[in-house]
C-alpha cells in the first residue's frame, strides 16, 4: 500500500485568545481509495488524539466534514486519498472565509447567518400560486440537494475579498424560493437580492460550480436570479445596467462598444471615478474607439431580437424529475 504524508494545519488559540497556526506532518500507509476522513480517524485514534476535526454522517449527507483538502474545499468523507495526493502529500486546512476555532474546525455561524439573511422559508403573499403543476418544480429541484456544507462559500473568490458578500449557498437558496410557485413574495425577494453585496457582486468565476459536492451549481442559480430581477425591473445599479447595455450594443453595432459601455454602466459619476484608470489606459493608447467596427449582417440580429421579443422562448435549464427508486 502507498504511504501518504498528511500536512495538516494545526490551529490553536493561545492564552490571549489569538489563533496560532502551524503545520504538522504525519505519515500513513493507506489504500488509494481510503477516504480522507478515515485517514483522519486513524491519525486521531493511533497517532495524535489532539487532532480536531468535525464529522458525523460519513456519507456526504450532513456536510460537517468540509475542509480544505489539497487546495480545494471538499468533504473529507467523500474524497479518496489517492485522488488528492500530490507526490504522496495531502495538505489539510480548515475551510477559508470563516473563523477558525481549532485545527480543522471552523465556526459555521457566520455562514448560516448569511443564509438566514435571505429568509430561508416560504412566505405568504400575493404571488403565491394557487395551483401547482408537476413541472412547477423543475427550477426548485436544481438547488434542493444543497446540504449547507459551505464548500462553495469557502472557495468563493468574491468571499475571499468581501466580508459583505452573501455568498453562493445563500443565493442558491434564494433562487429555490424565488422559483417556488408557493412563494408569495418573489418580487420583494428579487428587490432585496438586487442590493449591494447580493446577487450582483458575484464575479461569475464558476468556482462554486466546481467545488460543490452535490452539483448544486450555485452560479447557474445566480444567473437565473439576475435574469428574473431584471425582468421585474430592478435595473438600477452597475451590474444590471452593464448586463442591459450588452444587448443594446450587440444589436446596434454587432460588437460591444467598450467606450459607451463604460458610460452606461457606471453613469456619469462613475465615469469620472473611472477616469483615473481611463487616463492610465490612455497613456498606452488604449481608449476604445466610440465607433467599433460593424460586423456583416447585423440586421439579422435585429430581426432575431424582434422575433424573440414577439414570441419569447423558454431556454432555461430544467432539473431532471426526481423519481424515487
Amino acid at each position: 500500500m502507498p504511504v501518504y504524508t498528511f500536512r495538516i494545519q494545526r490551529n490553536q488559540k493561545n492564552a490571549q485568545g489569538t489563533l496560532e497556526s502551524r503545520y504538522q506532518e504525519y505519515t500513513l500507509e493507506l489504500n488509494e481509495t481510503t477516504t480522507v476522513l478515515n485517514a483522519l480517524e486513524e491519525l486521531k485514534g493511533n497517532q495524535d488524539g489532539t487532532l480536531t476535526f468535525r464529522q458525523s454522517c460519513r456519507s456526504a449527507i450532513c456536510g460537517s466534514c468540509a475542509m480544505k483538502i489539497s487546495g480545494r474545499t471538499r468533504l473529507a468523507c467523500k474524497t479518496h486519498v489517492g485522488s488528492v495526493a500530490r507526490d504522496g502529500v495531502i495538505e489539510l486546512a480548515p475551510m477559508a472565509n470563516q473563523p477558525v476555532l481549532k485545527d480543522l474546525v471552523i465556526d459555521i455561524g457566520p455562514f448560516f447567518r448569511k443564509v438566514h439573511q435571505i429568509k430561508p422559508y416560504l412566505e405568504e403573499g400575493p404571488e403565491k400560486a394557487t395551483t401547482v403543476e408537476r413541472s412547477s418544480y423543475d427550477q426548485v429541484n436544481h438547488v434542493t440537494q444543497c446540504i449547507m456544507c459551505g464548500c462553495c462559500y469557502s472557495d468563493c473568490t468574491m468571499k475571499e475579498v468581501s466580508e459583505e458578500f452573501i455568498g453562493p449557498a445563500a443565493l442558491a437558496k434564494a433562487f429555490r424560493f424565488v422559483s417556488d410557485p408557493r412563494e408569495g413574495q418573489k418580487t420583494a425577494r428579487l428587490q432585496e437580492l438586487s442590493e449591494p453585496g447580493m446577487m450582483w457582486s458575484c464575479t461569475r468565476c464558476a468556482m462554486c460550480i466546481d467545488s460543490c459536492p452535490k452539483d448544486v451549481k450555485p452560479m447557474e442559480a445566480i444567473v437565473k436570479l439576475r435574469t428574473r430581477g431584471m425582468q421585474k425591473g430592478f435595473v438600477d445599479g452597475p451590474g444590471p445596467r452593464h448586463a442591459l447595455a450588452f444587448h443594446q450594443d450587440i444589436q446596434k453595432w454587432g460588437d460591444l462598444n467598450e467606450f459607451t459601455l463604460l458610460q452606461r454602466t457606471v453613469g456619469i459619476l462613475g465615469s469620472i471615478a473611472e477616469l483615473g484608470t481611463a487616463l492610465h489606459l490612455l497613456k498606452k493608447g488604449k481608449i476604445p474607439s466610440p465607433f467599433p467596427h460593424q460586423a456583416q449582417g447585423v440586421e439579422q440580429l435585429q430581426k432575431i431580437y424582434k422575433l424573440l421579443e414577439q414570441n419569447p422562448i423558454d431556454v432555461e435549464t430544467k432539473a431532471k424529475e426526481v423519481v424515487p427508486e
Partner: protein
Amino acid sequence: MSLEFAYYPGCAAKQVQKEADWAARAVARELGITLHAMPQATCCGAVSLRESKPAFSLAVAARILSEAEAQGRHLATICNTCLQTLSHANYRFKNEPELLEKINSVIVQAGVRAYKASINVYHLLWVITDQVDPALLRQKIKKPLNGMRVAPFYGCHNLRPAEILVAKGGESADHLDRLIQLLGGAPVAYNGHDKCCGFHVMLSDATEMRTMVAKNCLSAKDAGAEVMISPCTLCDMAMGAYQKPAENAVGKEINLPEMNFAQLLGLAMGINPDTLGISRLHVDPSAALVARKVL
C-alpha cells in the same frame, strides 16, 4: 496536419487589447496554424447577455458557431470569457437537441444558416499545447526563457465549469504550465493561479476587484514569479492595466510584469517585440526579459 480554425478574437482583442491579437496571429503563422476571419461574427454577449436576454444570447452564439461551421472549421478564440460563453452554448446545443431546434427555427427566419452543432470551441492556447507537434514548437524557440520563473494565470473561464470545456478543465488543467516548460521557463506554483481576475466586477465592486488583482499578483510574486502570463484578454486587462490601481487600493507595491501567453511565446520565438505589442504593456517586462537573455 493542417491546423485551420475560424478565428474569433473577441471584442477586447479588437479594441483595448489589440496586442493579444497581434501576438496570436504572429505565433500562429510560425506554427502553421491558419486563423480564418469571421466577417459576420459579432460580440458573443459575454456573461451579461445570458443574464439579460437568455434566448437571444443563445441565438447570438448559434449565429457565430454557424459561421465557423459553414467554413467547415472548428472555432478558436483568445478570450476566456468568449471561450466560456460559446462553449456553454455549444455544450447545450450538443446535449439538448430540442433547444437547438428551437433556436434554429428563429435564426433561420432571419436568414442565418441553421447550426448543426458539429464543431468544437477551442482556445488558441489549447491548440498550441495539444495539437501542434511539440517538436515543431521546440524547433521554433529561438530565445528560450532560460529558467525564467513564470506565473501561469489561467483565468476562471479557461477552467470552469469543467464539464462544458473540450480541453482538460478545473483542477486537472495544466496547459499553461506545459507551455511555460516548453519555452524553457519554470512554472511557478502559487495560490492565485486558478483564481478570479475580477474583471467582471470591475465596475460594480471596484475595491474588491482591485484586492483580487493584488492578492493574485502578490501570491505569484511571493512564490518567486518574474513574469505572469494569462490566456485571456480580460485577465490581461485586470492583472496588467489594473495593477497600478490595485497597488493603490492595497497600499503595496506589486510591479509584476503581466502579458498575454502569445506575447511571451512570440518573444521566445524571437519575434520582434513591436509586432507583439510589448510596449503596450502596463508593467514593463524589459528588465525581467533582459535578465534571462530573452531580449
